[in-house]
């Protein structure tokens, strides 16, 4: 039995559709309100970090949250697993003017 069957075999397809759509549309909405430079920022950050650590595109996420009087740039980088230690997650928050 494949993974697909395992998750979806016993569920109605409409239920699956609604769940997938809800997640997707929530994500679309977040991306829609993000400034257009974010993907490029993400790319350039990736290039810099790659010089020192071996990470993939998927290991880095950049998002901007708007508060009432400030904007928070959230940067998440998942560092690769080392032989001896577990996955390490570095979170950095920076206040923009």
């Amino acid at each position, binding site marked *: 039995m494949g993974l697909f069957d395992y998750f979806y075999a016993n569920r*109605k*397809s*409409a*239920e699956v*559709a*609604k769940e*997938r*759509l*809800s997640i*997707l*549309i929530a994500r*679309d*909405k977040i991306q*829609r309100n993000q400034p257009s430079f974010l993907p490029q920022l993400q790319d350039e950050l990736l290039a810099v970090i790659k010089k020192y650590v071996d990470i993939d595109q998927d290991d880095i996420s950049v998002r901007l949250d708007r508060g009432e009087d400030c904007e928070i740039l959230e940067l998440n980088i998942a560092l690769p697993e080392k032989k001896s230690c577990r996955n390490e997650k570095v979170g950095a928050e920076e206040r923009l003017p």
Partner: protein
Amino acid sequence: MTKIIVVTSGKGGVGKTTTSAAFAMGLALEGYKTAVIDFDVGLRNLDLVMGCERRVVYDFVNVINKEARLNQALIRDKRTENLYILPASQTKDKESLTMEGVEGVLSELSESFDYIVCDSPAGIEHGAFMAMYFADEAIVVTNPEISSVRDSDRILGLLASKTKRVVESRPPVKEHLLLTRYSPERVLKGEMLSVKDIQDILAIPLLGVIPESEAVLTASNQGVPVIVNRSSEAGMAYHDCVARFLGEDVEMRFIDPKKKGLFSKFFGGN
């Protein structure tokens, strides 16, 4: 006061042109002077669905380019005196729909029409943008299919940010959800997103539900807006939508599975 209605969806093939034709005809039958404009430059089809394809001489772009007067390009519907069609250009470039040109045509129409229905092309390119830009109300046509629902959500985002009303800080475009190709039987079996599912996701008021119906294809084959066929479920459902749009309180129909007769209960399988 003239109302400009855009019929839009993002995704293609969900029933924008069918809805534009039916809705415009419905408004005209209620006695309102109505114009329906095809914004799909290069892929003109509204004239076919309305059954006036052989009477097209001038088109929307000819009027914008001042190669023809508006009343030369408007085609009067043969079935009702209140309905006029402005066909799209089949040959010109999409970019020929200029902001000033479209605004000029809409404001000239506003002098004598009660309703202007703008049939948007699929996608979110220039033509779709022009169709929605001047709208007062929007009918967002959606199928119970994930790609269609997602695209509708995208269109709702554009309606809330890229229209003249937003630019001028006027009240936003009034949005209506129109669900087409609905099959209550498949919803009951859990094979199709329900009205409620889609409403939960898109969160705009429901104008109506058009059931999957053979009458829609038959009507477009014949060049007759399906609303004219008052014995078909689709025709009745569109009629209800127009009534609701005009402020009547009409109960939703065709959203529950048909009651099975005794015979099919015993012998009909599922």
